[in-house]
């Protein structure tokens, strides 16, 4: 057996997947997944529907048999270990609350084989309900609960068994926006409180960014990138990841040279610029060619008559505002940067977002503007 992978914070691996393959007939659902999830981590599997994230979660839970590869949980090989004997519990997308039982019976369901006395079990159920904010709901009929309450019952029912890993299959997708945002915060708090490893499946990139310590982005049965939320957002490993997580502008670029510090490119609108090496991604399969990308909030618009660059590294380009979309707290602008059509005559307006800070004017369509940016806000896919 391979020794536990070294990791920076010294936490031991809780889930290890080694070359996990899964087929449904001819369909290759998981294409050699290699993954280590650490103890006590809030880990997310993020991807569009059909990318295999739910299959991977169900594989860990023991509901799917894998074609080949190894899944270890807490160092133990899970081959031939059925779902009911694994140290994992799951919160299902539909919550799967037993409709014929009360809330307390639902939460206490997994304690049936527990040798403790009925009184002790009842106390454990009360504690679990209190933990998820449903104190006093024990006698209610489960089928009469609201969506948010069902979710909490499902959480209590799984956590009462003190699993080593809690698996969550799109647990917030059935809730309305407000409730979802509230539950995101509650889940983070709950995870810190119980210290159990959480593995979340979601297609909502914002949800993954908000909640996770680390995120694995999956496409077509493969992990495209595994990183912390900040690294994932700031330095996506491929155009596809960049496109899936948030909004990114892409511009064709010409590579002029490369040093240890970075790659020098010529990008329309930006001119000749050296992109720092850490922002350079080499995973750009099947694309038209080298591409420079930047997030809408990575550049700033300032009035032409305004001050110069704030910092020494900042650089300034010019442009014209093509479109203004006002959101209250934010405004989105489409900006045609000077020289952006230099390559092929195609004008490519870029999207810029600005927070509507107090005193900051929202310029009109057609206004000339200065675009302030720095080489560090660009990423290069080559």
């Amino acid at each position, binding site marked *: 057996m391979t020794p536990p992978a070294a990791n920076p914070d010294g936490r031991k691996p809780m889930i290890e997947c080694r070359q996990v393959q899964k087929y449904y007939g001819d369909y290759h659902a998981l294409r050699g997944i290699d993954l280590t999830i650490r103890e006590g981590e809030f880990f997310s599997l993020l991807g569009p529907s059909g990318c295999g994230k739910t299959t991977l979660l169900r594989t860990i*839970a023991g*509901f799917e048999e894998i074609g080949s590869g190894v899944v270890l949980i807490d160092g133990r090989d899970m081959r031939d270990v*059925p*779902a*009911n004997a694994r140290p*994992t*519990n*799951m919160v*299902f*997308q*539909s919550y*799967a609350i*037993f*409709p*014929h039982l009360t809330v307390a019976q639902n939460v206490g*369901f*997994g304690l*049936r*084989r527990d040798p403790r006395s009925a009184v002790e079990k009842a106390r454990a159920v009360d504690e679990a309900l209190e933990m998820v904010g449903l104190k006093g709901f024990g006698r209610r009929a489960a*089928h009469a609960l609201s969506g948010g309450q069902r979710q909490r019952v499902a959480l209590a*029912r*799984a956590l009462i*068994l003190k699993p080593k890993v809690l698996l969550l299959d799109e647990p917030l997708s059935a809730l309305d926006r407000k409730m979802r945002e509230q539950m995101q915060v509650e889940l983070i708090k709950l995870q810190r409180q119980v210290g159990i490893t959480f593995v979340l499946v979601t297609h909502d990139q914002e949800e993954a960014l908000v909640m996770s310590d680390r995120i694995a982005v999956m496409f077509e049965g493969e992990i495209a990138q595994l990183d912390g939320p900040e690294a994932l957002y700031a330095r996506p490993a491929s155009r596809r990841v960049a496109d899936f997580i948030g909004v990114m502008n892409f511009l064709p670029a010409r590579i002029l040279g490369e040093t240890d510090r970075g790659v020098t490119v010529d990008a329309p609108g930006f001119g000749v610029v050296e992109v720092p090496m850490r922002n350079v991604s080499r995973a750009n399969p099947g694309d038209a060619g080298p591409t420079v990308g930047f997030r809408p909030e990575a550049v700033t618009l300032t009035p032409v008559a305004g001050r110069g660059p704030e910092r020494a590294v900042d650089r300034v380009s010019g442009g014209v505002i093509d479109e203004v979309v006002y959101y209250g707290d934010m405004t989105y602008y489409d900006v045609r940067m000077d020289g952006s059509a230099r390559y092929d005559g195609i004008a490519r307006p870029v999207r810029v977002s600005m927070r509507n800070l107090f005193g900051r004017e929202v310029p009109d369509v057609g206004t000339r503007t200065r675009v302030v940016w720095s080489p560090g806000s660009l990423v290069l896919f080559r």
Partner: protein
Amino acid sequence: MRGGGLRAYAVLYLVFLYAPILLLPIFAFNAGTIIAFPLKGFTTDWFVQMWGNAALRKALANSLIIAFSSAVLATCLGIFAARASTRFSFAGKGAALGLIMLPLVMPEIIVSMSLLVVLLAIGVKLSVFTVILGHTLICMPYAVAIMTTAFSSLDKSLEEAAQDLGETKLSAFRLVILPLVMPGIISAMLMCFTVSLDEFIIAFFLAGNEPTLPTYIFSQLRFPKSIPVIMALGTILVLASIVLLGIAEYFRRRGVARTGAKDTGGFL
């Protein structure tokens, strides 16, 4: 009034359906032996005579045994079919289910004759048991139809959740699936019981010398003086059928409500 013509049609339709059945209790309590108006006076004699009739009691006992046995058999077999059809996909599933439902539309006289030929050919003696076999066959479609509804309204992840919480496949079925489909099972049993109780052709062909209620009634129609007794018997059978179907529907609706699903039809 708008829709007056349609309303009249609906009323006529209902009269056509139910007027003959309403005549049953009227003549069951009529003092005359001839089934004709005007009525002669009120009596409960026919019910007393009915209870005193040993042959009729024998037929009733046979019918109850047959109805109960075939209801239990058809429902048990139906559980397997309904579970298989809702939970798994396999080669030939559509064909298998089609063949199970076929007796619903196949002429019963054909079913009865072929069963008779086969049973005689393999040397089985005609008895109450052979009727049970025949009735199980024709009750299966009802049982499968009712229980497929019960099973398909279940979320697949309920079973997985039970397994995830430590139960085996078998105990998960017992603790979660069975209680949730129980109303469907009861409803299916009552429906099969009613179907079997009323069934004539198979009972007529396969019962040998054993009478069931329908075959007994048929045999008595030749004797005009026993007709009022048949009317009394018919009254009771109609009442019993209504009560059984009512209970069946109650359980079916309760099952739907329990799983929180939307009600989509049913037999009543």
